[in-house]
């Protein structure tokens, strides 16, 4: 009997369903999926809450602030809320709900968390520079054949493969 929590879908099944969801998203809303946009909205909302003057002065925050709408009243924020709920449901059904840190047995928990934080920082930074992350720019962009989407996709995977060697100790 296999551990139930390690049973995942056939990747091609997941891919086709994900593709159909993306297709439905474009059909319904005319836009693609995304993830980092919601994180950006959160940051903008937080800065606006604690330092509204600064937020309105800044060239960057002010792009995403409008007088009549709260920065969290954003399509991507709602989508991510749904995403958390969906993932929670799936995890619950497969018995994967558990607080734990996943790491290679060769490294400590602390080291794993340190690099997770660094990775998150770099991804957050890069996603702003490129105006989108793997789901927003690469997946949704490539689905509508956006040139920027393809460039971002190739840059992400190219650089990840290029640097994978230097970080191999973290994983294997």
């Amino acid at each position: 009997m296999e551990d139930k929590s390690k049973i995942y879908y056939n990747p091609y099944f997941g891919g086709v369903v994900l593709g159909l969801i993306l297709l439905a998203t474009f059909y319904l809303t005319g836009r693609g999926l995304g993830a980092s946009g919601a994180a950006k909205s959160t940051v903008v909302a937080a800065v606006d809450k604690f330092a509204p003057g600064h937020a309105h002065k800044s060239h960057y925050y002010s792009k995403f602030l409008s007088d009549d709408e709260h920065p969290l009243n954003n399509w991507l924020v709602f989508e991510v809320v749904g995403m958390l709920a969906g993932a929670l449901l799936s995890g619950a059904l497969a018995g994967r709900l558990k607080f734990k840190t996943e790491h290679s047995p060769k490294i400590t928990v602390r080291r794993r968390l340190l690099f997770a934080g660094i990775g998150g920082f770099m991804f957050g930074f890069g996603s702003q520079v490129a105006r989108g992350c793997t789901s927003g720019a690469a997946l949704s962009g490539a689905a509508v054949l956006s040139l920027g989407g393809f460039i971002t996709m190739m840059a992400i995977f190219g650089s990840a493969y290029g640097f994978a060697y230097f970080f191999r100790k973290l994983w294997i």
Partner: protein
Amino acid sequence: MKISRTYLILALLLAGLAFALVLLPKTTRNKEIKPEELMTEIIDPARFLNPDLIAERLINEDPSIQLIDVRPQDQFVKFTLPGAINIPLTEISKEDWEGELNQHQKDIILFSNDDLFADQAWILCTRMGYKNIYVMKGGLNQWYKNIIAPIEPPETAPKEEFEIYSFRKAASLYFSGANTVSTTGTEKGNIVVKKREKKATAAGGC
């Protein structure tokens, strides 16, 4: 191996699906709009603008309008409206004019002596997929009646007609070259131009 055969079949299906796209006849992909769409555009009267509205926008030096005279060139050189350029109806489909007509920045207003030629030009432009194009209702003849030689309404007429009349008188002076008329004099005839509703495009972001 049964599984690899399933994957092979599915891979072939996917490739076949993509290849079928290449083979599809591409007649529907055309910048010209479909006859049915042209039909709905034709029966929509939103393209007709009253000369009064156009006069007002000219007086206010509205930078977002472009008048286009579709009469033959020999008529154009004799006289035209301020700022108008000449694209004769017979040349409307020439590529030289595409940059002028196929754009999103300005409202293009076509006119001729009546509105028939202008409307014909409009139908052809619309078929070619150009947007933001309008027709001066009644053409230059109506312009003459309204703006150049306005007729005073009878005393029994409602107040609005007098307001329109006073606007027309002022406009008449303005277009006759009497630049002393200030634009404030036109406020009485202030009529908001109804723009055609544009479709909202999908929001940005990702």
